[in-house]
């Protein structure tokens, strides 16, 4: 009964990790291709570690962020299902006190 939510949780973690990898690739590509410095572009100018100046347009999160959010929602849904389906061990008692803990 709990295999499906656990598989869902694993899928959510996998999707988040894939999203992080895609995002890291996109960020690396973004930072590796600075724009030419222009006094009329209205963009900030940054100094790279090697001392050269470069400018960047606004970063647009691509499919990486979408994958991360989708994986997060999937993880939340699986956590809720696991909480609903969770069963502990029975304890002694009578009436409503004889709950499963």
């Amino acid at each position, binding site marked *: 009964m709990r295999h499906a939510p656990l598989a869902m949780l694993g899928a959510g973690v996998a999707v988040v990790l894939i999203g992080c990898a895609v995002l890291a690739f996109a960020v690396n590509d973004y930072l590796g291709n600075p724009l030419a410095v222009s006094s009329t572009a209205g*963009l900030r100018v940054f100094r790279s570690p090697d001392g050269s100046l470069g400018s960047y347009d606004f970063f647009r999160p691509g499919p990486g962020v979408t994958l991360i959010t989708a994986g997060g*929602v999937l993880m939340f849904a699986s956590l*809720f299902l696991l*909480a609903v389906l969770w069963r502990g061990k029975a304890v002694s008692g009578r009436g409503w006190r004889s709950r499963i803990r």
Partner: protein
Amino acid sequence: MSDSRNFDPRFDPAFQRGFVDDDSRAPQRHGGIEALGLGGEPIGLPPQPVESREAAVAEVPAHPEPVAVSLEGNPWVKVLWVIAPVFILGGLIGQAWAQSLLFNGSFTSGPSAFESYVVPSVVQAVGPWMVLTGLAALVGVVFLHAVRWRAAE
């Protein structure tokens, strides 16, 4: 097969004395409600006449009431209680921080392009989903507590 002896035709026989409906003898299942711990045990057959009082006592189950499931010790509920405020506050604070970094009106060079553009953009994209997921976790865990709440004896 329904019993139709001397029933007042103006009213449903099911609510009149002496009505016996054989269909109701079949066990009824409440499949979905069992998962919520509302005591959705299948309703068994109606009690049959027994030969003696001792035999009747012997047939009584140890726990006649449906067993409710407490949320005490449920690790997943604790996880939901943790991620709900963390996601809500993290999303809100992240949104405000990203807005202040992106739109502070300054075009002087910041610490780096990564801190000035990349991090705020990612936080701004993930923030609303974090808030939404945190709210959903909060509503869900409160719903679970409400469904499984039992009044004190």
